[in-house]
C-alpha cells in the first residue's frame, strides 16, 4: 500500500479563517460557525498537492498532514 496521509486540526490553534475549506472543499467543509470539519479517512492521492497547500496556507498553522492511522479494512 502506498503512503496514506490524513489531515488533522489543532482545535486550539484553529481560529476559523476557513482557508483550508476554500482550498480543499473535496475533503474539508466548514461547520455552522466557520470551523473546519475534515472528512474522515486518508486524503485521496490526487488531492495531496492541494492538501499540502491547505496546510502551508493556514495562517495559524493549525492543520497538518500526518500519516494515516492503521487502516481498518472492514470499515470501508
Amino acid at each position, binding site marked *: 500500500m502506498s503512503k496514506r496521509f490524513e489531515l488533522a486540526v489543532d482545535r486550539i490553534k484553529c481560529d476559523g479563517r476557513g482557508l483550508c475549506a476554500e*482550498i480543499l472543499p*473535496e475533503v474539508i*467543509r466548514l461547520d455552522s460557525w466557520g470551523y473546519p470539519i475534515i472528512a474522515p*479517512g*486518508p486524503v485521496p492521492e490526487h*488531492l495531496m498537492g492541494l492538501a499540502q497547500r491547505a496546510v502551508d496556507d493556514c495562517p495559524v498553522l493549525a492543520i497538518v498532514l500526518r500519516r494515516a492511522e492503521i487502516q481498518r479494512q472492514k470499515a470501508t
Partner: protein
Amino acid sequence: MALGGGGNTYPMQMMDTVQDRVRARDGAMRLLNRMTTGAAVSALVGVGVLGAVSAHTIPGATSTSTASTSTASASITSSSTSSSTSTSSSGLQSSTTPVTSSSSSGVAVSGGS
C-alpha cells in the same frame, strides 16, 4: 469520476455544493496565477520605466539623460522580447510606450493591494 478513488470524501447529497466550491477554488487559483504573472510583468516593466523616468528627472544630470533613457528602454525591450535594440531614438518617444504599459499594469498591482 473525479472525486472517487482512494480516500473518503462527502456523501452524494453534498456533492453539488462541493462541486460549486471546487469550481470556485479552481477559478480563484487561476486568478491568483494571472495576478501573480501580471504583477511580475508589471514590476519588470516598472523597473525600466521608473529607471527611465528617474533618468529624466535626476537633478543636474540633463546631459546624460538622453543616453541613459535609451539604454533603460533597451533593457525593457530585451527583458520582454529578448531582442537587443541599439536605436538611439528620441528619449521621449521610446519612453512613452513603457509609461503607458506601466500605468495600466500599475492599476493591476494596486488593485491587488
